[in-house]
């Protein structure tokens, strides 16, 4: 949680690329795509309203590109995330540390009318979503911690430009695409003390329905996307004299298994600054 009256804000840049992908369950490459890369630059803000409630906003700008073939890359403002995070529980647990529980309710909204059905190069899928998430965190005084998170997302129908579409074994004679719900869960563990964080994580996504990409077909927004991802993150305060409250983050993620998704690597760097407002307990 961010302490009250404190704003943790900054810029996050990530680079994601894959050349192998799972066409349904079949792992393959595609000479008409080559390496597909997605860059995302996100302005991120996390504000502590009270010591138990945070408000979060994320505004991403996305660029996509295919290194081979004739398909045009896309770019634009993607979907804004607005979230409220609640600390439900914060109590000592055993003599080593504290157990915390958090709940997050968040929603995403496309910020521009980008084209969603030009996958895999569309910058998003134009769906409005609402998610609810529960996190359990055990933090020892010495700094070691463990985290478990589960999140469920509902996604609103998307209206595409095509008058009909074929997916999941059926031709739908409408432009209305119903989007299956998504379940994500993750475990991470590592060290967090005095602003320094290092962790490793494993995450799984399971989409609750949707069709598989057929052989030599292009992906579709309502595909049954699953992935398993491992990653690591380092965050540390930057030792710049005169500039306290500035932190840098580096993150790496690798999708090692999946369905209807790229076998991607993601590198993320972030530069975050802590702004103290009157009443903030941060020195």
């Amino acid at each position, binding site marked *: 949680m961010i302490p009250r009256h404190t704003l943790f804000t900054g810029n996050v840049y990530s680079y994601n690329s894959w050349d192998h992908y799972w066409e349904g369950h079949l792992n393959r490459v595609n000479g008409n795509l080559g390496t597909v890369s997605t860059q995302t630059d996100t302005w991120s803000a996390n504000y502590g309203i009270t010591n138990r409630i945070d408000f979060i906003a994320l505004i991403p700008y996305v660029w996509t590109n295919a290194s081979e073939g004739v398909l045009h890359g896309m770019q634009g403002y993607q979907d804004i995330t607005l979230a409220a995070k609640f600390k439900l529980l914060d109590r000592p647990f055993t003599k080593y540390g504290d157990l915390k529980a958090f709940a997050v309710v968040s929603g995403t909204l496309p910020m521009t009318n980008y084209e969603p059905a030009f996958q895999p190069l569309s910058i998003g899928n134009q769906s409005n979503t609402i998610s609810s998430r529960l996190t359990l965190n055990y933090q020892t005084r010495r700094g070691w911690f463990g985290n478990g998170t589960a999140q469920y997302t509902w996604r609103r129908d998307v209206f595409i430009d095509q008058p009909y579409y074929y997916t999941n074994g059926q031709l739908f004679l409408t432009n209305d695409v119903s989007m299956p719900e998504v379940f994500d869960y993750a475990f991470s563990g590592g060290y967090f003390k005095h602003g320094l964080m290092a962790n490793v994580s494993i995450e799984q996504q399971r989409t609750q329905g949707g069709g598989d990409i057929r052989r030599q*077909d292009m992906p579709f927004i309502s595909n049954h996307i699953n992935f398993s991802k491992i990653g690591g993150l380092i965050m540390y305060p930057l030792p710049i004299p005169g500039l306290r409250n500035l932190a840098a983050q580096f993150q790496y993620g690798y999708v090692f298994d999946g369905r209807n998704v790229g076998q991607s690597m993601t590198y993320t760097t972030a530069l975050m600054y802590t702004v103290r407002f009157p009443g903030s307990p941060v020195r």
Partner: protein
Amino acid sequence: MTISRKPSYNLVLAALAVVAVVPMSAASNDPGAGTWQMILLTGPTQVPVAAPAPVTDPGYLSELASIKTAQAHLTSAQKTSISNWSAGGTVRWNQILLELVASADLPPEPNSDGTYTFPSAATPFAFPQFPFANPPYAARSYSYVAVAQFEALKAAWYYKYQYNRPSPSAVDSGIQALIQTNGLPSYPSEDAVESGVAVALLSVLFPTQVNLINATAADQQQAALLSGKASASDISAGYALGQAVAAVFVTRAGSDGLKNATGTAAQWQALADAATARGEIPWKSQENPPRPPMLPFFGQVKAWMMQPGDIVNERPGPPPSTSSPQMAQQVAQVKATIQNLTRDQIAIATKWADGASSPTPPGHWNFIAETYITNAKLSEVRAARAFALLDMAMMDSAVACWDTKYTYFNPRPEQMDPTIKTVIGLPNFPSYESGHSTFSGAADTVLTYLFPSGKAYFDASAQEAAVSRLYGGIHYQIDNDTGLAHGARVGGYTVRFAQQDGADTATGTSITAGQTLDGASYHSPVTPGSLAAVFQSNLATSSTIANAIPLPTSLNGLSLTFNGSIPVPLFAASPNQANIQIPWELQGLTSAMLTTTNSDGSSVTFNVPLSAFAPAVFSVNQQGTGPGLVTIANSSTLVAASNSIDGTISRAASKGEFITIYCVGLGAVNNPPPTGTATPDSSSTTVSPVSVLLNGITVPAAYAGLLPGSVGTYQVNVQIPDNAPSGNTVALAVSVSGVTSNAVTIAIQ
């Protein structure tokens, strides 16, 4: 060369004056469909259908009993099924076909060595599955099913009205009519006919989908039975008829040239070498790994309405040379379009992309047509005709377009300038001309003919489909413009067939509000200068006939204008019909907007297709069939068997005698009189020569021109040749500039 004068005018005017007001029912059973011209079958009786048992037969009565039992225990699934089929079987099969095509519309994946394997009809389930339903294969599939169902239904209609067996719900009041039949005879069952055709043809066209096809056919037949439309014997006779008709089409499909359409590597290389020899950059696949060209010899597959010579004659000229400044300008235009694309343009490109996993461009137009066909509440055979006409025109477009593409082997924008990127998939075949534009030009032409009220929408859709290919970055503008125009010419061949296949005549079977038909045989289109009949509700409060020439432009409170400003002369006005002369001022146009304004000020505007030539012969029954309005020259004696027509003297003509034929639609004349006035003499002869067909023998007209003293009517004089057939019902038609009229009969001794 003798030329008649005034007596004939009085006869014609008398005939016109009592033109019956044709009842305007939008829904009709089309009892005459068994006489409509066939396309592939030799006639409606090519497949024999035995007479059914009488309705008192104990076997039939037990069929009825089992329907009653089943109706008493309908499950909700069965009720849903009946509801699905109540809009008509051809519409539902069209939707099934869209899905079959979309599910098969995937190009094979490359092998690890960079080669591609072709789907094989011999092993359809082996990877890659057969077929790859690309646009030409799809167009061919849609057309075979639509035409076969149409032909089978025409045959069914012939037998329905020969045997006149009522539907189970009509025979037995204890059987509910869960789908209305409007008194259509039920043997053989039209639903079973469609099922029989679909199973036979689709099992050949989409062999891996037999489960869906068989399930749909079973569902259709069950719905026909449970709804009280058809008994088990109606259904089995219909299914057998459908299968037998489909077999004729399967035979044609086996040798229509598709088997050779892929070609060999040597042939593909020869296409590239030919382009190089012409000094042009040959098309190259932009796929990675490069993929063989798609169906390069589809231009030699058999079309429906066009002969191979027509395909060659209608082929557009070459695109700009790949080394010319015009080509550079075309490339630059694509580049500039892609670099400045708006979201709306991307939406248009995506809407019409119709690439992999889609019903393909011809499917897109079948999807558009569905709404119009459903809303028109056509009889099943007429709905089948609408799909058949549309799909024949698009099959012919596929042949014509692929002939063009592979004649010129023109490179795509991405090949000419690799910095051009696309926002839809790039098809793996040459650029000039655009397939989507060709399909759309043809579809627009046919659908406008069938549903004139939709012209603005069809035109706009065709234009949008064409430009979408430029927005997608996959075609030059010249590809789209050329394709639209080429498609319109191709569609014209189907429209000309449709104009004379017998389906578009009066007698209340096909007239819908907003139609303007020629005044002799009630066909569309109409020609400037000729008499026409306008059908529209609420035109006038009572019936009035003009009593002077020049004809008035307002009658009984009704007035009409073309294109906003051209007044229209009126012969007669009645509540639902007006007889007019199409103004000469509209010469050269292919359509015009007609506005009718009645005495209470309300106006309706609708589109009227026009043609330079649309000959139509008047008939005694005023419906364009049967004994013609043909007289012995210089008399008012009708050329028909003696005493065969009430109230008129008639006799057969002798060989060597001159006869006079009264008709409309012979086109431009020398010395045309002003619109609304009559020519005083015989100097207004037709510009194009006219001939008369007598049972197929062609005889040049001795005289053809406007009928002196009358407005909007022509007179053709011809001498009966010595080799003319004898008989009381010799078929007579008039032909001008390659267009032939309806056929009426005369008697020759």
